[in-house]
């Protein structure tokens, strides 16, 4: 199976034709746009992380507060009656 194609060009690429494709300004603009997008995504992620942490703190404090406000119920003491079987003949 042939993996590549060889082409023989009669004419070589001229300098003026290459110059036509040069666009440093355009390249910098694309770069800046990409950087801005990256920055935006990073800021969004940071904001989401901060919001999540704040929500977690608020949730925790609410939970703590409600736990404090809840009246403490006296827990009934549970006695476990144990019956010991003494062998006959031993004084009780």
């Amino acid at each position, binding site marked *: 199976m042939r993996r590549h*194609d060889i082409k*023989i060009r009669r004419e070589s690429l001229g300098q003026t034709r290459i110059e036509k494709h040069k666009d440093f300004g355009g390249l910098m603009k694309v770069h800046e746009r990409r950087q801005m997008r990256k920055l935006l995504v990073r800021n969004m992620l940071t904001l989401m992380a901060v919001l999540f942490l704040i929500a977690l703190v608020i949730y925790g404090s609410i939970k703590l507060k409600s736990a404090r406000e809840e009246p403490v119920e006296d827990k009934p003491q549970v006695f476990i009656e144990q019956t010991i079987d003494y062998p006959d003949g031993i004084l009780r």
Partner: protein
Amino acid sequence: MDLKNDATYRRNEITAEQVESIKKDINQFRVVYDTYFDSIFRFLYRRSDNEALASELSSNTFLKALENIKKYEYRGVPFSSWLYRIAANELNKFYRKNSKVQVFSIEEERIREVVHDDLGEDIEQMIDSLKMYLEELKDEELNILELRFYEGLEFTEIAYVLEKKESAVKMRLYRSLEKLRKKFKSKESK
């Protein structure tokens, strides 16, 4: 047939100090762009035979270089090798994504420059045979031949671009040249 290592488009290299100063001020990247655009564009055009595609891939190459220049570390090869490596990766990505057959376009003028005149046969006929023999080579062998004789890269640079060992690159090159030589010889004897 004998090929001479006399790449026409030998590049001016920027120094490691210049790279360090570009890292500090990205606006100085214009130096990189102006110095290497021609050679990278020619390389990509040769490997795509499509001006619009070469232009797009050149933009991608320089954009990647711009985004990653802060991570660049000097590894004992000229800065251009780093750019060639990015460009080669962009090309491979394109061919893989579009599952197209790789193209190697060679200027006839360049063949005439690198081939000795004492061939004793018609140059047109020789070009046709060369085309046929080159098509029989493996992609990697062709890559090495192209980087060595058309881009004028040193073995260390080719090894860096293709992410191979220098000794492996040398061996591959000599083997592929030997293959071509044998094919031409057997043709002559017929």
